[in-house]
């Protein structure tokens, strides 16, 4: 079957078997291997990507279901060579070790911060409870998401101030 999917802002047209899982389509046909497979029961969340802006487990969606939709993977987080605040926060706060859960964890956290820009620790833990990590014990992941939320709020604030400053410019 032919599908048209926008992945990280770029439109792909591809021929896929109807049974091909989205995770394998991303990994094996588009070579976006940041998305990982950690289980066979939709438990671990290592395959989490954004589907029309919402986090989903791509091992439990068929590639054909993505026809006409937008997908964002970990490879789409960085823009213009700049790490996303979530990525730099994970680095600063040692929120990863082996790195295998990290892409899915980043995407789930990204989804959370889109809808809840200032979550509590409990809200973060709830929102990430579909994502298993074997290395970190989650403490530093929660810390990093808080750190990223502050960075993103700061960036928004800067953007607002910049807009305000340019608006009142007398030049």
């Amino acid at each position, binding site marked *: 079957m032919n599908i048209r999917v926008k992945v990280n802002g770029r439109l792909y047209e591809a021929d896929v078997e109807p049974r091909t899982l989205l995770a394998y389509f991303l990994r094996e046909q588009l070579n976006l291997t940041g998305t990982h497979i950690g289980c066979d029961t939709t438990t671990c969340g290592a395959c989490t990507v954004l589907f029309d802006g919402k986090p989903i487990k791509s091992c439990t969606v068929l590639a054909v279901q993505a026809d006409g939709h937008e997908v964002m993977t970990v490879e789409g987080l960085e823009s213009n060579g700049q790490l996303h605040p979530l990525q730099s926060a994970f680095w600063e706060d040692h929120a990863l070790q*082996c790195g295998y859960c990290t892409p899915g964890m980043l995407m789930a956290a990204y989804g959370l911060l889109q809808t809840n820009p200032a979550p509590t620790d409990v809200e973060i833990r709830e929102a990430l*409870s579909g994502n298993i990590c074997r290395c970190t014990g*989650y403490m530093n992941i929660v810390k990093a998401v808080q750190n990223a939320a502050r960075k993103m709020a700061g960036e928004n604030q800067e953007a607002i101030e910049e807009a305000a400053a340019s608006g009142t410019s007398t030049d």
Partner: protein
Amino acid sequence: MALPQTELRPMGKPIGRKEDPRLIRGKGHYVDDVMLPNMLYLCIVRSPYAHARIRRIDTSAALAAPGVKLVLTGEDLAEMNLAWMPTLAGDQQMVMATGKVLFQYQEVAAVVAETRAQAEDAAQLIEVDYEPLPVVADPFQALEPDAPILREDKEKKSNHIFHWEAGDREETEALFRDAPVVVKQNVRFPRVHPAPLEPCGCVSDWDAARNKLTLYVTSQAPHVHRTVLAMVSGLPEHQIHVISPDVGGGFGNKVPVYPGYVIATVASLKLGVPVKWIETRTENIASTHFARDYHMTAEIAAREDGKVLALRVKTIADHGAFDAAADPSKFPAGLFSIVTGSYDFKAAFVEVDGVYTNKAPGGVAYRCSFRVTEASYLIERVMNILAQRLKMDPAELRLKNFIRKEQFPYHSPTGWVYDSGDYEKTLKLALERIGYEELRKEQAEKRARGELMGIGISTFTEVVGAGPAHQFDIVGIKMFDSAQIRFHPTGKVIARLGVRHQGQGHETTFAQIIAEELGLSADDVLIEEGDTDTAPYGLGTYASRSTPTAGGAAALCARRIREKARKIAAHLLEVGEDDVVWDGVAFSAKGLPGRAVSMKDVAFAAYTNVPEGMEPGLEATYYYNPPNLTFPNGAYIAVVDIDKGTGAVKVRRFLAVDDCGNVINPMVVEGQVHGGVTEGFAIAFMQDIPYDADGNCLAPNLMDYLVPTSADTPHWETDRTVTPSPHHPIGAKGVGESPNVGSPAAFVNAVVDALSPLGVEHIDMPIFPWKVWNILREHGITE
């Protein structure tokens, strides 16, 4: 911001990890990311029976299926003399079943096809005719005289694998005869699984034109894998190139050579193209190395004032169908004889009997440090029971019996020489930080109100860094480890080690060690591991041995370079070698601190201006045979509240105070502790892999085998004391496994403490809510 820094003297600093930039971008390179031209996919057909004779395998439909290139069975491998392979424990294990199967999910046949889906489809078409045989799932039943013999291939017609003992039986029994107090307890450490998030897999690539096999594999010990593969396949070792790329967690699961690696290699040899095998989660849990499964009985002899005298331990170890436990060859029960723990016993006697059952092989995995998890859990559990019997505070009992700091190096009654420790200091820091006295007061008030609150202590001693050549080897290879450091002309360094990290941060921490020794910043040092063509031979990363062994090798290798650098510096400074002073960052002429040359200057001179007669270049290799293991310790305290209605245990606080000697990177150590304590929490409260009487594995996936999520996992507190290892080049001890070794006992001790007013002395793990609820119901506390 804890990002890689360019400062000098990086030792002990929480610098950001060099691994992270690729991993946070999705640019790690794990085995399943490897894509090679013409690569085929392998799918394994597994046994639905735990014990059955194979009457016939019909592969015709699979062979005719679309995309299929090869079908293999045990008989095909037998023709190549590859149906069985040696294990690290000196036993043999089947690669693919011939004659019969011995555990559910065992490898029976394999299909190679053009796509993953085609291989899976064709695997479904293989028909196997089984004749079920009586199953032995219980290790005690396995030793009954009328038990079915599982291993017909063995000369010894028995399910008994080995008997192993340590300590002095007679002295121990004499102490027990006269002891005023004896405490005895049966303790089971359940079968669990390390379940790294990335399952096991490989890409095997035989290149006939170059006469070379390249194996990308999830490996914690790539050099050992290469040697074993050479022994199994008959290929010369220099024509086998093992690459362990980024590994998505190992936790001991990725030490052994698995049948899948051998089958993929046979397939690639037969077909001449690369063959990828990636197991599913279910295959990982049901067929790769499990952990624990020790049925232990411990007895402590003590005086009425609580002073311990002797320890006696008997254990039945369930090893599954093949003894493949990844132990040093002289240690079939690992380092279990560390079971006297942090206490000064006069004598001890420890016995372990290994038993075959119809289950998957394994035993040594999941941060166990070669069975230290079992040992620490047992002693910390029975010390608590002794305190309970004597109505002593468990902290007081421990303080009374600790090996005192002036007793180190301490010769234990089972033969260990503990390097260093200040157990009293470590426990006292933990007691103070958690507010122990206040907590006991609060507990007394709550008990008066009928509430169930518990405090659990675990003061463990680890033994890590295997190990000295006279005692430790894996398949005969002594358990040294190695480092190779090479300066480039511009003063930048590439260093390679014989270990292989799986997330523990070696690319950062080994750079810190080497940079510290050579006066560089960690950013100047590139660390590589896992490629057997380029890295020096080492025994790999497991049992928290990287810092004790390769960490020692890295420091001594850097010092070897510094010896040559000093000669070059003397030449550049135009002074005698004895007049050169190294201040940690640069060489200077004695008495003339203004005249200095940095290591960067020396490295450049090594390629451009060496003294006459000196070999150009600046590099060294060091194979380090450690004189002893390292013995980190810790004091862990858990505080729990129990819901009387449901039996649910809530971990209110958990403090881990670790002492691993000198710390290389405190941020990385803390991350190791968080991860390990989360595993200990899972083991204490959630994890078990039961088998029914027919040998069905009842928890072969993440629906039934529970792994804690962020919502389940408590908040962890950490602290540390520093008691360096006197024999280690930088005074550092291993630490990665301490949190798993130490924490289960703290959790269980806390739950038992909460229930102790009811007379409860022990509950076997995992402490599911229903177990507590049953106890509460028996006592009429809940309905």
